[in-house]
């Protein structure tokens, strides 16, 4: 019996690969297993190989497995491309239609997927037949699929549901006759606490909704678009608005306008869009307008690898804008953290009146995974300093320049007033200005205003900006960021089995850079390695830039071929180190 199983379905894009994976994953998640799925796709819409790799386990894993136990193949290309990934003695279930040829180390089961589907009513149900066949191998019944099938097809009538269920059953029966039910492949039963099943993007959208975001101007880009598509459905319930703008420059400046107007406003993009937003991010810093920008990183530079994993915008996010502004950068690593990070981002943005960038990566944004039940109470709303009537001079209305929007304060933060507030009339400009917002280039004023703005961040402390787990005085401490958290924790279990002492420090914020916390986390570690999906060791360079102690002794494990880290990548590297 298996306590975890790695399952993959592959075929041509547009052939139902995604829905097959999704149905399988949702059914098992409902049953109480932990599920982690990762889609491999290309930027073509139809055609081109795609696959969905799903890991099902009794304990939580947030990474795809190093190998595949069961592969469902809709075409020969799937076997050619993924056959090596199937472990020794693993199973390939392939459609009879294309006369499959499989590598010798795997056990091939040829099932007339298309033919059975046609018998049940339509060839498109071949994916259902394949699901039934999988269920047989794994020692699962077919009932787990019923609620998912009903949700999907009941709209189209009971008959469609019945046809699909029949397709599943016949796939199951056919496989049983082939002798497919193998106790070695059966999943250990689980008592099943149901949890959620969602992507990082889902969690970002839900987080924004809960945090009170009401205006979202954005321009579509992979892997960010889901967030706006989600909120377009949700905002009508709360009276908000999503605007699909003409470009990212408009998205960012419209976000700034809406925030200046008093809304909680944010935008969501990926690398190329972030690049276009940089001038306006500077404007937000200079005018002290709170905005939240979500950057779902993907492969760069330029259009790079639009559908592949990478984490290479960190330096751009930290240093991208011209001039010097206060800015905060958060880096969640799981959907749960995506959810709370958005809430935190809005609070920090309004508390410090500056841009806050929340960075995810394609793997985190798009991988659907079992997620703890999210709670509304985990997001609180703190709108920072907002002027009320008692703050306004009665004369303010008729004597402009009375309201000191940029009053010099000890914290560097001053009260905001929104258009419409009587007595709060003031001017805002990206040009250097005095306390009432009017342009003023005097050197002494310039210095004071720069200091005021930069001072705002001195007090910022981000809870859990580094989370360290594992042994004291470890042989290896692995530092990670974003989605690679899962592969790191798993590599640690492998190392422990070899008798190594290991620890893991995950970075949840890059600005303010958690120097103290990293120093603390690295204490006593014999070797330190930073794992990141880019070619120039950006996070490791930041450790040097911000003068983290012993940063010279830190090594780097990089991956920038577009694929996600596998636990074995990290394991092998660390073994080599010690």
């Amino acid at each position, binding site marked *: 019996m298996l306590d975890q199983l790695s399952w993959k379905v592959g075929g041509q894009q547009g052939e139902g690969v995604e829905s097959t994976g999704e149905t399988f994953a949702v059914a098992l998640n409902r049953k109480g297993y932990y599920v982690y799925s990762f889609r491999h796709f290309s930027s073509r819409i139809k055609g081109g190989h795609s696959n969905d790799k799903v890991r099902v386990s009794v304990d939580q894993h947030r990474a795809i497995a190093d190998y595949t136990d069961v592969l469902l193949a809709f075409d020969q290309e799937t076997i050619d491309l993924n056959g090596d990934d199937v472990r020794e003695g693993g199973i390939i279930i392939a459609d009879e239609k294309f006369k499959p040829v499989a590598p010798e180390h795997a056990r091939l089961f040829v099932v007339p997927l298309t033919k059975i589907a046609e018998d049940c009513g339509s060839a498109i149900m071949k994916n259902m037949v394949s699901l039934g066949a999988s269920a047989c191998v794994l020692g699962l019944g077919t009932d787990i699929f019923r609620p998912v099938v009903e949700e999907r097809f009941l709209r189209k009538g009971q008959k469609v549901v019945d046809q699909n269920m029949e397709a599943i059953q016949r796939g199951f029966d056919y496989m049983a006759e082939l002798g497919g039910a193998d106790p070695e492949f059966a999943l250990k039963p689980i008592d099943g606490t149901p949890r959620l099943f969602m992507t990082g993007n889902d969690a970002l959208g839900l987080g924004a909704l809960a945090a009170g975001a009401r205006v979202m101007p954005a321009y579509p880009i992979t892997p960010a678009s889901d967030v706006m598509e989600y909120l377009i459905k949700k905002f009508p319930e709360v009276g908000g608005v999503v*605007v699909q703008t003409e470009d990212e420059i408009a998205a960012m400046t419209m976000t700034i306008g809406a925030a200046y107007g008093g809304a909680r406003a944010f935008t969501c993009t990926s690398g190329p869009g972030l690049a276009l937003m940089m001038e306006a991010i500077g404007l937000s810093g200079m005018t002290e307008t709170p905005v939240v920008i979500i950057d779902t990183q993907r492969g760069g530079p330029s259009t790079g690898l639009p559908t592949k994993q990478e984490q290479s915008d960190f330096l751009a996010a930290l240093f991208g804008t011209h001039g010097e502004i206060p800015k905060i950068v958060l880096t969640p690593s799981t959907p749960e953290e995506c959810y709370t990070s958005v809430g935190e981002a809005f609070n920090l943005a309004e508390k410090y009146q500056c841009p806050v960038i929340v960075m995810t990566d394609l793997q985190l944004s798009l991988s659907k995974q079992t997620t703890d039940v999210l709670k509304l109470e985990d997001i609180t709303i703190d709108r920072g300093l907002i002027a009320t009537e008692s703050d306004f001079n009665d004369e303010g209305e008729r004597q402009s*320049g009375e309201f000191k929007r940029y009053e010099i304060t000890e914290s560097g933060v001053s009260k905001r007033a929104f258009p419409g507030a009587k007595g709060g009339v003031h001017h805002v400009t990206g040009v250097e200005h005095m306390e009432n917002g009017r342009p003023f280039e005097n050197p002494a004023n310039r210095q004071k205003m720069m200091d005021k703005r930069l001072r705002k961040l001195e007090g910022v402390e981000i809870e859990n900006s580094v989370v360290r787990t594992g042994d004291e005085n470890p042989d290896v401490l692995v530092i990670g960021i974003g989605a690679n958290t899962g592969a790191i924790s798993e590599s640690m279990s492998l190392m422990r089995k070899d008798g190594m002492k290991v620890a893991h420090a995950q970075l949840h914020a890059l600005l303010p850079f958690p120097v103290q916390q990293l120093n603390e986390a690295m204490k006593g570690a014999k070797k330190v390695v930073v794992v990141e999906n880019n070619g120039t060791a950006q996070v490791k360079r930041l450790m040097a830039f911000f003068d983290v102690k012993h940063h010279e002794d830190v090594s780097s494990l990089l991956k920038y071929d577009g694929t996600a880290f596998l636990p074995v990548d990290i394991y092998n590297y660390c073994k080599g180190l010690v």
Partner: protein
Amino acid sequence: MATVKDFRNDVRPNWCPGCGDFSVQASIQRALANLGKEPHEVAVISGIGCSGRISGYINSYGFHGVHGRSLPTAQGVKLANRDATVIASGGDGDGFGIGLNHFMHAVRRNVNITYIVMDNQIYGLTKGQHSPTSAHGFTAKTTPKGNIENALIPTQVALGAGIGFLAQGFSSDVKQLVSLIEQGIEYDGFSLINVFSPCVTYNKVNTYDWYRENVVNLEQRGDYDPTDRALAMRTVIETNGLATGLIYRDETRVSYQEQIPGYTKEPIVHHNLQLDSELFDKAVKQFA
């Protein structure tokens, strides 16, 4: 009730004496007072250029942003507060050079804001380069041998894009300009008032006298019908973009705000942001 004086502040504009922008500023202030607005109800959002400074010279909420982006910023303000009177303003370079894309899309989107462009057919603040509205053959610092590009004609572009309210004014005709601005603000949708506003320092061709001789005032045509789109298009072509007055007004277009599903009458700025727990539970269930 607020008067023109209430829309003035004590900031001295840094415009050259004689710059056309002075009367645009005065006309906006007069129009706001005539409409019975209060300074706190108004937000003037501007771009960068000599003209872009205008937001600092009017006593109202004002936002002086980055070059070419006043329109998206202004739309954002309006979406956050549908009760605010939002005016976007800036130069021809700002609006039709770097910001042209936003202009076309603001026309399409039709958020209820008013866009006032000070068109001097040159770049003033950067000291005399040609602008997208400079004529073919026009000499400027960046066209010493004469402009080899054609001029963009704002009124034609606006009509081509399907604008709902289009007017053109001239700095010297303040009376007309005030009335056009008032109508633009009252129009429920996106409105453009392009204003010929001479740059006395860098543009020696398109001077006050030149405009006086060349503009064609539609108000003097008794039979001009501003609701006739084909006539409007023919007129801006025939006058080579020099027609002034109300050029076109479409009463059938519905503003963006009116069409947003679920958008409330209560401005977003006044919303209670705490999410209803039932709504939240429903949202979470989708992922179960």
